[in-house]
């Protein structure tokens, strides 16, 4: 469960990061489609938080709980901040912010997997 959601969130966010890079190069701002894609990442991070907490409660392995949970919570916070900031910026760099935000989500999803598997 955790693996599947983390991989989905990771790949989706990295795909959006590439998409945003393309849009930055092309001087285009966030489109409706990109807004919904980032919203989908947000849903994914919420599911990951729930799955992670459930997994942590039921596992007998020694997972670094505090770090693991702080990553999961931070992941939930990044897409909204990315959206607010990215939409507020009226130049090409609005999608530049999306690139940074989604790249960060992708890297953190990988770290979540590393922490979970120890």
């Amino acid at each position, binding site marked *: 469960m955790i693996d599947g959601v983390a991989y989905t969130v990771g790949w989706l966010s990295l795909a959006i990061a590439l998409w945003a890079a393309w849009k930055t190069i092309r001087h285009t701002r966030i489109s409706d489609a990109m807004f919904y894609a980032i919203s989908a990442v947000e849903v994914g991070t919420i599911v990951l938080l729930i799955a992670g907490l459930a997994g942590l409660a039921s596992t007998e392995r020694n997972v670094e709980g*505090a*770090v693991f949970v*702080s990553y999961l919570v*931070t992941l939930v916070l990044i897409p909204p901040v990315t959206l607010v*900031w990215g939409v507020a*910026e*009226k*130049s*090409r*760099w*609005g999608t*530049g*912010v999306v*690139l*940074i*935000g989604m790249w*960060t989500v992708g890297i953190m999803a990988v770290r979540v997997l590393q922490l979970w598997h120890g």
Partner: protein
Amino acid sequence: MADGLQHGFGRVVVAVYAVFALSASARSLYQLVTKASEAPLAYALSALAGVIYILATFALATNRRWLAAASIGFELVGVLVVGLLTVFDETLFPDATVWSEFGAGYGFVPLVLPFIGLAWVLKARRGNLAV
């Protein structure tokens, strides 16, 4: 035309600084709370790096140019000195910091970031922020 440090390309710079402010300070807080005695110098340094990133993020986001230049300048010196020290004397820092080996653990972003940050502040000083 918006012309503060925090607009246009600056928003991307602020975003990257915010990510590093969060990760460096959260990491050092965790290290200091759980295992401060293992590598006090490395963890104190992580905390210092975290504070510097927070300062730089704040300065850039609120268009404080001198504070931005000072904190980013300090960051540049920090990543270069710590990078050199960790390459020449591995025993000095038993645990990694954000600046170890010139930020290799973070894709060398900590090494590149201060140059981009300073360039951005200098560009702002010339009143030349249109992108």
